[in-house]
């Protein structure tokens, strides 16, 4: 029986031919008579990397069990359908944290590997793939490979950031980070424009484990690129621990129109930029620091029935200031973009993933309500800027990039093609590469 799958942007969908609900990680699935396979985790990628029309879909969420936890050395082995939230619930009370976490805890472990996700500490430690010790990869031939840097290394590096196209990631073993408690010590700094951002970043990125900046994408002129810079570090001994606030906020339905438009955005950005800042460090639970949007269930529905796009790119450090300024000018001129505009510099520690997005440079992520052609036209302009700057777009967020941009942004594509499983395929892959 077929089934409709959505991705997080709610624009792309796909109808499957068949759905697998695996009951045991050690049982082979019957791939004999199927032509197209893709693993679907928690559907948190924004565009079409997690979707595949007319394919047989492995619902990895059914395999979300822990396998082994070495509490002494912080090595965790679990099935790849487990979410980062499920992992954190186990490891945080025992004094461990994920070495790298993206901006939501609702992604699966398999999805984090397949998209080689990065976090606020990329400049200091690298991406998620840097902390993957090994995993099991099941090919469509049902051959199973244990992959690590030492064993089946070619498959290891193709699968990290490999968008789920090398096979089914069944389980994985990851290295964790020791912490004292769930708290974070955080600081925030206002910057009035892009120049101030880059000056601040040079100083703060060198001394802080976690850094990220929010940008007011509507500001222009001398204020272009103004925003707030956040830093964080895992806290030490605390006399009193902060509890996470239970959130019951949520969007139960999606509205016919987007709540996010140029007017609401202007108000939000003004208030957010001008909110009272604490000059002293603030103690925070890790959830609001790492996952502010997770507090609103189904926040993607804020964008209404038509859904939204996310546009995230990275460009090399050379000329970064000018390129980012140009991008922001195009966005503020059109009064598009959204409250979620995130700027961050990434470091030079790489996971080795053949198709990994994270690389040294500056990355900017922006949400855009789906306004049809108007939005696509803006993307075409931005694509050209990214292409000329020698940058790349993040497949996990993408729904629109051209085959050329993908090819230029991912120079190891040809190497990857040799290791891609012949039956594993996604709408994304067919869009940017072909069958």
């Amino acid at each position, binding site marked *: 029986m077929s089934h409709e799958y959505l991705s997080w942007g709610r624009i792309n969908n796909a109808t499957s031919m068949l*759905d697998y609900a695996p009951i*045991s990680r050690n049982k082979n699935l019957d791939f004999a008579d199927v032509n197209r396979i893709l693993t679907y985790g928690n559907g948190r990628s924004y565009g079409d990397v997690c979707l595949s029309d007319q394919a047989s879909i492995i619902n990895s969420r059914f395999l979300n069990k*822990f396998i082994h936890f070495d509490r002494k050395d912080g090595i965790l082995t679990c*099935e790849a359908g487990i979410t980062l939230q499920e992992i954190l619930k*186990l490891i945080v009370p025992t004094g461990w944290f994920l070495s790298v976490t993206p901006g939501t805890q609702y992604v699966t472990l398999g999805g984090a590997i397949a998209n080689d996700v990065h976090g606020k500490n990329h400049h200091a430690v690298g991406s998620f793939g840097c902390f993957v010790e090994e995993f099991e990869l099941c090919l469509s031939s049902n051959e199973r490979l244990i992959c690590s840097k030492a064993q089946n290394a070619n498959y290891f590096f193709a699968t990290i950031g490999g968008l789920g196209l090398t096979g089914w990631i069944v389980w994985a073993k990851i290295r964790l980070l020791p912490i004292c408690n769930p708290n974070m010590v955080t600081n925030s700094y206002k910057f009035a424009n892009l120049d101030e951002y880059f000056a601040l970043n040079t100083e703060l990125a060198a001394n802080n484990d976690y850094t990220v900046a929010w940008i007011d994408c509507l500001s222009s002129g001398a204020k272009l690129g103004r925003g707030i810079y956040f830093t964080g570090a895992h806290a030490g001994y605390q006399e009193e621990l902060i509890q996470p606030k239970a959130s019951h906020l949520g969007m139960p339905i999606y509205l016919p129109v987007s709540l996010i438009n140029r007017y609401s955005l202007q108000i939000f950005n003004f208030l957010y930029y001008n909110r009272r800042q604490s000059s002293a460090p603030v103690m925070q639970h890790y959830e609001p620091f790492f996952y502010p949007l997770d507090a609103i269930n189904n926040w993607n529905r804020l964008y209404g029935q038509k859904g939204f796009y996310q546009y995230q790119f990275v460009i090399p450090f050379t000329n970064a200031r000018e390129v980012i300024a140009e991008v922001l000018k195009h966005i503020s001129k059109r009064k598009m973009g959204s409250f979620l505009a995130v700027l961050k510099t990434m470091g030079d520690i790489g996971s080795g993933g053949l198709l990994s997005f994270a690389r040294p440079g500056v990355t900017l992520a922006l949400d855009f309500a789906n306004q049809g052609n108007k939005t696509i036209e803006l993307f075409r302009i931005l694509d050209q800027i990214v292409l000329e700057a020698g940058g790349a777009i993040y497949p996990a967020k993408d729904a629109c990039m051209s085959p050329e941009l993908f090819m230029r942004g991912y120079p190891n594509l040809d190497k990857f093609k040799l290791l891609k499983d012949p039956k594993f395929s996604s709408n994304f892959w067919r869009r940017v590469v072909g069958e």
Partner: protein
Amino acid sequence: MKNAIIIGAGSTIASCVIDKLAAKDFNIYLLARDSEALLEKQQDLNVKYPNANIFIQAFDVLANSMDQITEKINICFDTLGTVEVVLIAYGTLPNQKLCENDLKEESSALRINGVSVLEICHHVANKLQLQKSGTLAVITSVAGLRGRQSNYIYGAAKSMVNIYLQGLRNRVNQYGVQVLTVMPGFVDTKMTAEFKKGLLWAKPGKVADDIVNAIFKKKDIIYTPWFWRYIMLIIKSIPESIFKKMKL
């Protein structure tokens, strides 16, 4: 520490209940058809609840004789001692169309979802009666409350279990044994992986919460989520002369 036996531990709902009981410091005996999946669940629980004792045994209501199953249940009771909770959670969703054309298919669906459950209840209830304590919780379904053309084989089996549990509750009440009938509506589980999910669908974690609460509150019958009580009230009140013409 308290003790529980879960029969049909591979079910998605049962799997959530198991976690909630293990979190409350229960020792748990798991019975399920698939021995590999059982081993994996045991590993998972050992990681999450290092203090709980988790035991496993494979069983199959079609392949095993009733004597074999009785013996397996005896082993659980012998290993654990006094058992506070027994949950029967296994079941299949038969293909209605296939059953209509193949009597063998229909019989096996009735055996799995109906008769075998009663046989296990028979044995477990006698054990609990001897103990003079404990809870027997059985997951049936709102489908057992009215026969519909799309699903009446499953419905008939579940209905048989509902009535049996009613009588059993009446019988063992005097011995301090609780019999809990759990009637879920649509739940997003492995069994229903192929269905398109809508507003009426519940997450297995929510259903498991309801079951655990009902066990500790000594309830008799629960609908989960709660609104199914009212949906079924309406469905049951439709006159048969009209109902027979409806496409349900």
